[in-house]
């Protein structure tokens, strides 16, 4: 009895609050991650799915994936391209908008609020929307650039290997702008106003104040936005899957869609797990880097 009392008095009681959530996450996330790794070094296909004995093949799945065709290498490359291009434009547009809405005009707050919408729409809908707008015959984009005379023939944006990736990236930029804008806008509000005032007394021009005050003071926010952007973009699945399913001829195949294709179209579960694992390890490394960076001075 005494012992129980002591236990409850001690701070370990906090563990009881955490435990249910922790166990849940272990069952539905922790265990699957480990299981995913085990799957990736076994040979599980639709034939062996229900048998109890599964053959261990070591890292053969990984080796085979790299050897059998170029799709894995291509997917890694595509994922990088997709991520870097998306972030580049999201960040620039988001930053410009954050600076603009930081000005104290009448519509600033309500309009900035409305611009959050793209981020909240289910990605499936966004994908469908852009698929429609970039449609070859039905799409408004083709109509618009045709009518200003830039093209004479409709472009088949999503079914052409050259234009499919830029189109998907375009849609992803649209989703990411609000995220970049709001985080940078919040960062801007933390810069003390006096700094700008004294700079303008010293006769510094706008470009100069931006370079010497805004950018350095905003650096922690900028770093967070870029790293988080990388993590969120690198794992994008729904958008690509709904818009192109990785096609045409794998030109938009990213790691997440390739993993899905292997597991659920080709029923090569082990290979799908192996690709997912590659994606996971890359993201884990970047996440740890980010966490180390954010919590370098702060106690967790």
């Amino acid at each position, binding site marked *: 009895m005494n012992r129980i009392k002591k236990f409850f008095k001690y701070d370990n009681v906090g563990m009881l609050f955490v435990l249910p959530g922790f166990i849940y996450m272990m069952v539905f996330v922790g265990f699957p991650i480990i299981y995913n790794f085990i799957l990736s070094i076994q040979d599980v296909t639709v034939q062996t799915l229900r048998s109890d004995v599964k053959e261990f093949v070591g890292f053969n799945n990984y080796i085979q994936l790299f050897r059998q065709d170029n799709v894995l290498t291509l997917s890694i490359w595509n994922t990088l391209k997709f991520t870097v291009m998306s972030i580049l434009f999201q960040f620039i547009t988001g930053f410009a908008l954050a600076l603009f809405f930081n000005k104290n005009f009448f*519509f600033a707050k309500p309009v900035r609020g409305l611009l959050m919408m793209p981020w909240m729409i289910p990605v499936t809908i966004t994908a469908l929307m852009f698929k429609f707008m970039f449609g070859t015959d039905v799409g408004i984009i083709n109509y618009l650039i045709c009518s200003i005379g830039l093209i004479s023939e409709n472009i088949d944006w999503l079914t052409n290997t050259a234009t499919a990736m830029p189109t998907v990236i375009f849609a992803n930029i649209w989703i990411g702008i609000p995220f970049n804008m709001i985080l940078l806008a919040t960062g801007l509000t933390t810069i003390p106003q006096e700094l700008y005032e004294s700079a303008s007394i010293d006769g510094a021009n706008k470009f100069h104040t931006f370079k010497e005050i805004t950018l350095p003071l905003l650096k922690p926010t900028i770093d967070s936005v870029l790293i988080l952007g990388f993590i969120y973009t690198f794992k994008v699945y729904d958008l690509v899957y709904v818009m192109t399913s990785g096609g045409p001829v794998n030109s938009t195949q990213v790691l997440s869609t390739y993993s899905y294709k292997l597991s659920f179209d080709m029923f090569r579960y082990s290979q799908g797990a192996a690709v997912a694992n590659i994606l996971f390890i890359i993201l884990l490394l970047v996440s740890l880097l980010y966490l180390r960076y954010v919590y370098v001075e702060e106690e967790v």
Partner: protein
Amino acid sequence: MGTERNLSRRKNILYCAISVLIICILLFPLYWILVTSLKTEKEIFQIPPTFWPKELNLKSYMTQLERGDFNMFRSFRNSIVISVGAMIISIVLAVPASYGVAKFSFKGKKAIILGFLITQMLPVSVLLTPLFIMYNKMHLYNTVWSTIFADATIGIPFSVLVLKNFFASIPDELEEAAYIDGYNRFTTFTKVLIPIAKPGIVVCGVFSFLYAWGDLAYGMTFIIDQQKRPITAGIFNFLGQYGTKWSYLTAFAVVTIIPVALIFIFMQKYIIEGMTSGAVKG
């Protein structure tokens, strides 16, 4: 939140005009699917396109009410069940967990927080194949539970991390006062702290709901029967089978956006708070 000094009247008007222009460009896609959903199939393919339907056509919505295979209102209901389920699980588990990590120190706490932070950044792909096989063995495959359980794994870490900061900001004196009044740690938590943390809990509820509402991968992979699938998976199926039926597809899309738009209109404050507090600090 404008941090710059007041602008002259002329600049103010100019900036307002620019901001309206920005919104027209950026939100045009949303306007475009709404308008398209109200057009007839013939008018959709018309060149030049019309920016407002010549004849208002509500058939795309009405036929969905009656017909079988892709009944969007049934999918809508499934999505509500799944999202509310995931939201409840997230809140019930995350509220005590965040209190535990915010107000106590115990062995392994740091590791647990790190775990939550990392799961927040997890790709869905890494869970799809193992959960698919697990669900098959647990007889959860092709039930709404499969997707509810999977969707809650997105809401829980987010909620824990947002609420952790919330609970940490509540002064310890409050708890001590409750002790003196005869509350124990559990009743302090339920009677004193939860009411104070309510705004934070609302943020987490909203986000857990939205994460689940937007999910496609889990709903599509773990549920096979069209009758049980969430609306996002329903749309995806429809797209695959009737790829050019844009009047129906856009109507489907509008219906999916309605709850999001409602949440957005009534809870905008919470959304911006959630985005900034959840994302940057973790």
